[in-house]
């Protein structure tokens, strides 16, 4: 059984988990549900003491210590793992506690065959009554996999091998860290089945951000928000009467997914896209796409990842050369005063582009004022060859402050002098918006403006965008995969579909298998943001 008492975990000055109290009895499975990046995986590693760091109490200068530190108690299989010696831990690992982690591409030693992996664990725990073949048979794994290296296994197979390896010594406690996160539904089902193997004899903690999985597999669910457990309960309780707003947001499926109200202003078209097609090499991305955008209107383009949304945004913004089709702008978007330098590309200057990753779109060593001053100079064609734009003259300063006010950012001197790399994600995205506004745009093209932001920041940005739309009558072309965002902003929606299955699947040569159904995962994406980019070894 597992019992956590007042467990806190922090890295550097940032607290990841605070006062976690949990207890899981043998035969029970507890789901720890929470957004990505909240320290759940660190908790899993901490319970096996695989985290490089030290207990807080031995730490004099907390702030100076950059690694992990923790406090509290975690009793796993009768031992407080937080204060256990190295020798004790070595004995506990594998024997008493098992861990199954989320990263599948790299979960097994690339240099060893499956047989070597199994044999290693058998030898380590002195299990003699079972052969590797029997192990594989038990876990529904084809015996020919035994001679392969991990690179030649599919994600589902790797996950099952991992489970088999963890369950072989019959641990009393098992921690599952997002075991199905990277799997397709068929493999998810197989994995869930494998997990159920002998579960009556052990206590399990399932760490996940997928409420569906938590609801279907677990006996109890603990909802984690900002490092604290906000609610615990059985799946049924939580599904029917969630107490905490966060858990409600997380667990309850959004009911109304109907398109937004058709209160669209009927202005003239500012942008008309006609028969647009685009492909990268032999891979078609867009085919015969046509739509139009009216003045003061927000058009949301929805669709799963990889369906060409971002390409569309870049094409419309003129950042990528047009291959076939037409993008037509109305006269209103032409620059009011003649620019001394013609804009590159077919599009006019008076559009603003807001990108998915605000920090990538900003120059890290520029201050807020410099960023805006540069954009202002560029839009006016005043930028000299090598001179850095000045921002101390009153006209520039006023323009900068106006733009910042428009996106609800402060205009005080310290903020103006802050480097963009020190801004939070929401601030940075709003700064991008402010920069876009300086061009006095008729149209703003926003490419996934909220997807890399946390919920608060996303809300701020959405609010800013809708303000802009209403007050400044700016047309917005919103590219998003989140229906919630589209719903909040858009007057019209357009959904793109993938033209052909994506050639790059998550594992080399592994089963590319079933196409992921878009709807449920899209809903998650709206809350969780994109899954962190998988670390691929170069």
């Amino acid at each position, binding site marked *: 059984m597992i019992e956590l008492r007042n467990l806190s975990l922090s890295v550097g000055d940032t607290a990841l988990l605070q006062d976690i109290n949990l207890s899981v009895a043998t035969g029970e499975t507890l789901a720890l549900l929470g957004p990505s990046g909240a320290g759940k995986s660190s908790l899993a590693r901490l319970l096996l003491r695989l985290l490089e760091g030290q207990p807080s109490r031995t730490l004099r200068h907390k702030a100076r210590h950059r690694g992990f530190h923790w406090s509290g108690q975690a009793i796993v299989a009768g031992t407080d793992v937080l204060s256990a010696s190295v020798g004790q831990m070595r004995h506990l690992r594998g024997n008493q506690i098992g861990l199954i982690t989320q990263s599948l591409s790299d979960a097994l030693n690339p240099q060893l065959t499956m047989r070597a992996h199994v044999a290693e664990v058998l030898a380590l725990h002195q299990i003699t009554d079972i052969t590797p073949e029997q192990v594989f048979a038990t876990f529904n794994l084809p015996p020919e996999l035994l001679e392969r290296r991990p690179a030649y296994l599919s994600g589902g197979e790797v996950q099952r091998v991992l489970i088999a390896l963890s369950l072989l010594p019959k641990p009393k406690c098992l921690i599952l860290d997002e075991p199905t996160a990277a799997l397709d539904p068929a493999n998810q089902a197989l994995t869930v089945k494998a997990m159920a193997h002998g579960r009556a004899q052990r206590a399990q903690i399932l760490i996940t951000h997928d409420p569906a999985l938590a609801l279907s597999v677990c006996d109890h669910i603990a909802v984690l928000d900002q490092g604290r457990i906000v609610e615990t309960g059985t799946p049924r309780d939580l599904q029917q009467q969630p107490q905490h707003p966060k858990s409600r947001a997380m667990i309850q499926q959004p009911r109304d997914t109907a398109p937004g109200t058709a209160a669209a202003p009927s202005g003239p078209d500012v942008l008309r896209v006609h028969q647009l097609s685009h492909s990268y090499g032999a891979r078609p991305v867009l085919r015969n796409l046509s739509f139009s955008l009216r003045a003061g209107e927000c058009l949301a383009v929805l669709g799963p990842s990889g369906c060409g949304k971002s390409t569309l945004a870049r094409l419309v*913004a*003129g*950042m990528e050369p047009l291959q076939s089709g037409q993008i037509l702008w109305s006269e209103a978007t032409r620059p009011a005063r003649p*620019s001394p*330098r013609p*804009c*590159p*590309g077919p599009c006019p*200057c008076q559009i603003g*582009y807001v*990108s998915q*990753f605000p*920090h*990538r*779109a*900003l*120059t*890290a*060593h520029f*201050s807020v*004022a410099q960023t805006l001053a*540069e*954009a202002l100079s*560029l*839009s006016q*064609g005043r*930028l*000299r*060859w*090598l001179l*850095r734009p000045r*921002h*101390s003259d*009153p006209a520039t*300063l*006023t323009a900068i*402050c*106006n733009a910042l*006010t428009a996106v609800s950012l402060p*205009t*005080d*001197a*310290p903020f*103006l*002098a802050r480097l963009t*790399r*020190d801004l939070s994600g929401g601030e940075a995205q709003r700064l991008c918006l402010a920069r876009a506004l300086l*061009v006095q745009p008729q149209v703003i093209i926003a490419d996934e403006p909220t997807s890399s932001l946390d919920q608060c920041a996303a809300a701020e940005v959405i609010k800013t965008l809708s303000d802009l739309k209403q007050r400044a009558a700016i047309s917005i072309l919103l590219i998003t995969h989140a229906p919630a965002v589209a719903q909040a902003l858009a007057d019209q929606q357009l959904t793109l579909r993938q033209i052909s299955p994506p050639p790059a699947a998550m594992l080399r040569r592994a089963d590319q298998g079933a196409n992921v159904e878009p709807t449920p995962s899209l809903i998650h994406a709206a809350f969780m943001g994109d899954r962190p980019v998988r670390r691929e070894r170069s």
Partner: protein
Amino acid sequence: MSAPTPRIPQTITRYRRQVLGLFAVVILTLLIAASDALLPAYVTSTDTLQPPSARHWLGTNDIGQSVLTGLLRATPVTVGLALLTAALALLIGLTMAGLAVVFPKKGRAVVLHLTDMAEIVPSILLLLLVAAWHQPGAAEIILLMAVLTWHDDVRILRSVLLREIGRENIRLARHMGASWPYLLLHHILPAILPTLTGVYLQNVVQAVMRVAGLAFLGLTAGDLLTWGSMLQDATGYLHTPAWQWLLLPPALCLTGFLLVLTTLDQRQQRHARLRQGANP
């Protein structure tokens, strides 16, 4: 809206490290220029192989020159040689990396192949060959070493340049009409400065080692006084007590300088990592 008149704390503080570095380089250059006048003459005398004394603090060498004077005179030469060699190598490397980035496909392949080939040339053989031909003086050493080491920098600089140029901020600014020179000066160079500094420091370490090695083998011009050539002078006296004042001072100087460089390099790396870590 109130009209704030923010005074923005400016460049000096932000680029303190760079400014300090520049300052150090200027001072060093001045010192090198003035060292001849400032330092006592490095003359021969009949006090040969004297142990350290009040008159000669670090003793004298086999032709009666004061080791301390020699050390002081060799310092700007050794350090200057290393810094300049490293700078030239970095410049060539950066140019090649830049070419590999901007050239179209064919040209890029040529540049990269050239780098590959430079990488596999066994540089010591080339050095021996050239040294047999002509013992290089200061200018030749700088040129030779730079030509033999620039390839180390190309790959890393190229990847950094590619990363920076491919970044959205550059693309956006370019789209808004910024010129390449402007982008290079204000967006790209400051962004790759930490990498450049790191590469430069490692170049310096390499240059110190190589120049000292060449001088130690006695393959540099005879009148070029460096720590390496002082070590070379000491080799004949290992069997006499004179090694204590002939060998140790230049060896310690060399080691100390390298230690300072590696420490700087490590700090710089840690700094860069921290900054990267703070802003994913």
